[in-house]
């Protein structure tokens, strides 16, 4: 009995200590939130400005509006503020989309050209939105480049090479396996809530994963993400057996119109 009461007292002391220390706002006291938030904003804008200066951004309503409507559908169904996302369409033949710090989301036209239906685009967009929502972007950059370099880039004192390096890490290399899986599964949830066919996303991964090796140079998003077939499998497993009545936003005609517009820019 004495031992039990002593154990109880010890636990009260331990959890009491945690409880009291929880009353302190350590994030403000240690200045952690403010540093990361303002740095992330500056860093994201600096990287985006650098990409934008390449002059390949497309500001064509015929392309941006359908992409926005897909994002609105995903975000609306999942209580995500779509206005916080800064979506940019870039003319590039690579099948790619990636997230930058400060909620920038870059979509390459190659992704639209490679997609056979809107579900495939939504799957990739959902995946990148998940990276943003789960705060994977800054985590990856800090891990790959180190906090001090990122802070110097955010303050504008970093050099162009480091900026290129940051873009390379974000656009052409995958997050680690755990984060990729988390983003994939989150994307499946987003799609299901938004009544978008998850099977189309899985089929997209299967199709691109088994493409000819020569074509792989245009498939950055797939070739740099680990094992597309394995991903397609767990995406289908996560979807479950329940049938969801899917609601199309664009339809095949709109998608074809988008492709024609891109081809028009190409010519």
């Amino acid at each position, binding site marked *: 009995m004495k031992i039990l009461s002593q154990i109880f007292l010890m636990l009260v002391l331990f959890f009491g200590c945690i409880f009291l*220390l929880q009353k302190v706002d350590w994030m403000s006291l240690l200045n952690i939130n403010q540093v990361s938030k303002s740095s992330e904003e500056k860093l994201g804008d600096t990287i985006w400005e650098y990409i934008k200066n390449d002059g390949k951004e497309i500001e064509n309503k015929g392309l941006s509006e359908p992409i926005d409507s897909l994002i609105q559908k995903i975000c609306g169904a999942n209580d995500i503020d779509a206005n916080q996302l800064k979506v940019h369409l870039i003319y590039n033949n690579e099948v790619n989309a990636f997230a930058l710090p400060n909620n920038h989301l870059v979509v390459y036209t190659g992704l639209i050209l490679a997609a056979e239906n809107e579900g495939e685009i939504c799957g990739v967009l959902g995946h990148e939105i998940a990276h943003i929502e789960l705060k994977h972007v800054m985590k990856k950059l800090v891990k790959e480049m180190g906090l001090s370099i990122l802070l110097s880039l955010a303050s504008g004192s970093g050099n162009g090479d480091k900026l290129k390096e940051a873009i390379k890490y974000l656009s052409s290399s995958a997050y680690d396996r755990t984060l990729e899986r988390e983003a994939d599964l989150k994307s499946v949830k987003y799609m299901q809530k938004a009544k978008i066919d998850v099977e189309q996303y899985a089929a997209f991964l299967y199709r691109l994963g088994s493409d000819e090796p020569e074509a792989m140079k245009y498939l950055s998003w797939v070739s740099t993400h680990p094992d597309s077939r394995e991903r397609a499998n767990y995406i289908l497993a996560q979807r479950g057996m329940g049938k969801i009545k899917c609601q199309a936003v664009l339809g095949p005609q709109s998608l074809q119109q988008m492709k024609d517009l891109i081809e028009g820019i190409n010519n």
Partner: protein
Amino acid sequence: MENQTQAWIVKEDEAEKASNAYLMSLIAIIAGLPLPIINLIATLIFYLGNRKGTYFIRWHCLQALLSQLSLLFANSYGFWWTIYIIFGSDHLSSNYFAYIFTLIIFNVVEFIATIYTAIQTRKGKHVRWFLYADICDLLCKK
């Protein structure tokens, strides 16, 4: 923690071995700081190696072992939480800092108590820790 005068006379080698049980955990803490399991393994090996020793030695080996065991769970939780923040999708929060600072407080108290007990035991004094001493009385047969 209390210093108790025991009814028996502690020999020089007994006091040395009993004191070494605490020293062992201290050295292991320093050597394997990020991995909370190493100090437990070290004290466990030392306990098993001395389980046929005298009552004084066994009792103190057990007290050193138990003191490591209780912090193991708390430290392991803190360790894996940190790993999940670095490599997983969790992020820094006030709750995390509250937990880590609690761990630091308890570990520092335990560290100081271990040094003090190692010194006193080396002098042949019987140091009894709160809670652990009573469990040792139960588990350690004379």
